[in-house]
């Protein structure tokens, strides 16, 4: 069974390599990262035995680590107006910033015109 996973991983690597040289426009990055995610999932589930793990906490830690990574990447991209969200929906971005901004000022101990 391990050999099956190993063969799949090698095939996926070859696919990633070959597809990179084909023009797919915007989907080149998505395909490459999609295949990479599939490979990483296979390694995690079967080589690291997460699929057959008896302890539920292990699976929770894996999901938590993934969640916080995606939070880091997602929110950073969004606040820097990168990726397909903020640019195509500037009104949504502005409105959410408008809601968050007053709450930020609640936490500041001195205003912008402070002489400090």
């Amino acid at each position, binding site marked *: 069974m391990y050999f099956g996973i190993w063969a799949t991983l090698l095939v996926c*690597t070859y696919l990633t390599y070959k597809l990179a*040289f084909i023009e797919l426009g915007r989907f080149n990055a998505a395909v490459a990262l999609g295949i*990479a995610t599939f490979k990483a999932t296979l390694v995690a589930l079967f080589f690291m*035995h997460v699929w057959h793990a008896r302890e539920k906490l*292990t699976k929770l830690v894996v999901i938590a680590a993934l969640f*916080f990574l995606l939070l880091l990447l997602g929110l950073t991209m969004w606040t820097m107006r990168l990726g397909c969200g903020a640019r195509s929906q500037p009104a949504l971005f502005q409105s959410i910033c408008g809601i968050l901004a007053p709450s930020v000022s609640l936490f500041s101990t001195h205003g912008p015109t402070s002489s400090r």
Partner: protein
Amino acid sequence: MHDNANANSLTAVHDHHGEAHAAHNPALLHHFAEPQQQRDAASLGMWVFLGTEVMFFGGLFCAYLVYRQWYFGDFGAASKSIDATLGATNTAVLICSSLTVVLAVWAAQTARRTLLISMLAITMLLGLVFLGIKAVEYKDKFEEHHVPGASFSFENVPIPGHPGQFANPRHAQMFFSLYFVMTGLHALHMIIGLGIFLWLFIMAWKGRFTPEWHTPVEIGGLYWHFVDIVWIYLFPLLYLIDRHP
């Protein structure tokens, strides 16, 4: 019931303990109810550490994503100058090493000492092959003056897909800074992994691992697989940005 002369010594307690609990494996620590729980605890501890490692590399990936969006053309030009074939070979090497690691764990579980030792040895060998190929890549970068610093030079390199436009050297230097830090940090993890596996190899050679207790092999394996996963993501992001035009 303890001998009064050494009532507080551990040996007295353990002698008494040995009579009462002859049944359980000496590898089972006393604060665990059963061996499976002990194994799960060790594995959970390793996974929590790997969670911190995810954030460690995650920060670098985040920086990479931001700069890639800002300097897309320059990063494409810089990415084209590193050898994707070597990168793909390294990916295949690491995938094979992950296979040998999981086979080593299976060998430890099923008391196959020869297989365990040989799988650990092959894993280390593949790790060295990976580092060797990395060294060749670094040497190429050094010779082409692509190492960030005083002698960095990236003049008149065309941006893929935009004939006539040339990459901004300062932006390309950012790519190479990220390239060296990310692959360098990864290589450092590989070297640490090699050290861990050398220790595992020596322990296995001495016959210290049994089907009841082979925890170091399992959690060493988890570490190695994590390093493999990091590389699985590093490869397409660094090597395969803009190869199609």
